[in-house]
């Protein structure tokens, strides 16, 4: 079955630095990857989607890369701010896959210190 690993449970960085979060997967290649942000006591909020034929996607201070050879996606937040502190989830989508086609990782909790 598909397995998703997000590099670490927690990542602590200094304000202004770039945060890099990793999402690795095994088995089949997804049609696309999604990244979500989740704050305590709230539901996940969609951030970015990258398709299997795309190498990179950007949105303001966010950048996502997708390497189907390495079976890995990297999520970058540049010029990080304390307000970026949250848990970030990656999710893999495959047409005709199980679990409603979308499987989530466990998430990485990012803390940005002032």
């Amino acid at each position, binding site marked *: 079955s598909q397995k998703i690993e997000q590099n670490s449970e927690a990542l602590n960085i200094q304000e202004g630095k770039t945060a890099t979060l990793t999402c690795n997967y095994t088995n089949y290649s997804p049609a696309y990857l999604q990244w979500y942000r989740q704050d305590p006591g709230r*539901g*996940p909020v969609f951030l970015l*989607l990258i398709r299997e034929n795309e190498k990179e996607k950007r949105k303001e201070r966010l950048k996502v890369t997708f390497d189907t050879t390495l079976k890995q996606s990297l999520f970058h937040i540049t010029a990080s701010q304390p307000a970026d502190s949250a848990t970030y989830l990656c999710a893999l989508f495959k047409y005709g896959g*199980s679990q409603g086609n979308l499987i989530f990782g466990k998430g990485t909790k990012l803390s940005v210190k002032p």
Partner: protein
Amino acid sequence: GAGVSQSPRYKVAKRGQDVALRCDPISGHVSLFWYQQALGQGPEFLTYFQNEAQLDKSGLPSDRFFAERPEGSVSTLKIQRTQQEDSAVYLCASSSHIDSPLHFGNGTRLTVT
């Protein structure tokens, strides 16, 4: 409404009680999902509807769990004879198409004592 609404926000049940959790998706969204999220974990898939049809219920942990969406809008997740291991946050999400990003509600935190 503007987003996905879930009620109640918190629910405390004694072991053995039945509970019903409600989800109001974004108007017009065809797809509706239920997820279970334990503390420190990612959302785990429970079941998926397309309109009123339940297309995938492979994630429901046992036959004590039942979901419905009779008119293709509001959905209810019912848990019968609750047990302590059912304690978790139950998230509902909707999307306009099967491959569109999900819009999540803020969940119902269920505590079984």
